[in-house]
């Protein structure tokens, strides 16, 4: 008897060629990164002690800032996206249209404009009682910066809502009917039948959106949020007035580019591992 396992392996065979293609792609990316690094090492001062002595402070603040934003924005945006996507496929009209308005609003306005908007006016929009009770001891600037980060999360949440909506909608109606016919309650059929399938189908585009939002944190430089890119422009200002070579910026940009690359690569890889871990015959993305 042929086991399910054996059959699954056999079915994957043609993927080998695609995987080979993916490796070629990865090698090309790696090659480009390598050229960048070699340039940075030999022509510019990436290994220069003096450079790092001056840049390190900016780098450290920027790195932890960026990691903090990413650690905040990814879960918040995923939660917002999931709930909004769910609301959009709800039976209840009162949930559907606010979700649709939310998505259209945040999808239709450039992140940069929203970030600056939130930064400048967020404190004015938060009702006074809440300000008094929750943020009484928080500096106004922190409120503004975090509001901007939150708006960025909402922006990505709007895109993720569409991803989750597509995931929900690609679960055939018959699946829910079968669960109902077994006497399962609404929330049971949601948890045991619809969600496991919807989430599997959402994983690939979700990885893509996470990569986008990680890089979008660099937009917070526009409001002097303490993150990699913003701190690098601060450093450029220092260079300009202190007489150090402006070519140092090549090293700076190489470093932060590599870090963004490393972050997006890690996150998309994690999602790919999840995707493989939960892959099920009949629920895989179609190969054409």
């Amino acid at each position, binding site marked *: 008897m042929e086991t399910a396992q054996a059959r*699954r392996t056999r079915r994957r065979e043609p993927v080998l060629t695609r995987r080979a293609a993916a490796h070629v792609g990865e090698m090309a990316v790696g090659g480009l990164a390598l050229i960048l690094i070699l340039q940075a090492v030999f022509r510019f001062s990436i290994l220069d002690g003096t450079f790092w002595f001056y840049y390190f402070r900016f780098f450290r603040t920027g790195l932890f800032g960026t990691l903090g934003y990413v650690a905040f924005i990814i879960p918040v945006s995923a939660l917002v996206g999931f709930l909004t996507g769910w609301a959009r496929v709800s039976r209840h009209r009162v949930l559907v249209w606010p979700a649709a308005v939310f998505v259209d609003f945040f999808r239709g306005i450039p992140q940069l404009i929203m970030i600056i908007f939130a930064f400048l006016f967020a404190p004015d929009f938060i009702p006074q009682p809440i300000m008094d009770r929750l943020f009484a001891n928080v500096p106004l600037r922190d409120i503004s910066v975090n509001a901007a980060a939150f708006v960025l999360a909402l922006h990505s949440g709007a895109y993720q809502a569409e991803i989750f909506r597509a995931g929900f909608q690609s679960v055939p109606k018959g*699946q829910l009917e079968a669960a109902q016919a077994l006497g*399962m309650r609404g929330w049971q059929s949601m948890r045991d039948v619809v969600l*496991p*399938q919807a989430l*599997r189908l959402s994983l690939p585009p979700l990885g893509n959106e996470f990569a986008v939002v990680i890089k979008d944190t660099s937009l917070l430089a526009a409001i002097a949020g303490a993150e990699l890119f913003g701190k690098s422009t601060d450093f450029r200002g220092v260079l300009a007035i202190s007489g150090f070579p402006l070519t140092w910026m090549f090293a700076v940009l190489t470093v932060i580019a590599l870090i963004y690359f490393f972050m997006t690569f890690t996150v998309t890889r994690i999602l790919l591992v999840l995707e493989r871990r939960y892959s099920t015959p009949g629920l895989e993305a179609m190969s054409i």
Partner: protein
Amino acid sequence: MIEVDGVHKRFGALHVLRGISVKVERGEVVVVIGPSGSGKSTLLRTINLLVQPDEGRILIDGVHVNRRDVRPEWVRQQVGMVFQSFNLFTHLTALDNVVLGLVRVKKVPRENAERKARQLLARVGLAEKERAYPAELSGGQQQRVAIARALALDPKAMLFDEPTSALDPEYIREVLDVMTNLAKDGMTMVVVSHEMGFASSVAKRILFMDAGLILEEGVPEEIFQRPKHERTRSFVGKILR
């Protein structure tokens, strides 16, 4: 066992069921035939309340079930359903498809549920396929798993909504065999199907539906050989040809 009493159902302007009354006795097998759009599926779905009737009553074992104080989930545990398109849970193995209802609805401990699921899979001839996912099974195998899944909750009756019409011809036999055995074991069954061989040999009664009404009913021989209505005659003529 199952009593449908004066049931009406409208979908918007469409009047799909126009006053249907049927009684199905315990252990009886009733086959419903009729042209597409005649309301056969809707009738079946009102019995387990996947569709709520607008008017009329559904009684299961004498209990009036389409009332506000009866939970539809409870009704659906009493009446198993098998769909035309199988609707097996794509992300679960054959075994887990059968186990899910036992664990979640009947609150049976996982271990006991698996034991029972294995017995049911053996009963439909799929003991060795328990680890296969639906996509790895043929249509006939999928439908047999779906029957096992519905049987897991020990339903008092089973509803079959065109269980073989999505199947390749070579798989129809195996599904009908399972259904025939089920009937022999005394299961109460309402089957929407145009499988004339099955209907003639297994059904005790045939209902002919047209335009939301039961136009004619009788033993298979009567309906297939001496239909009274012109509509029945013309329909039977088409499917027997």
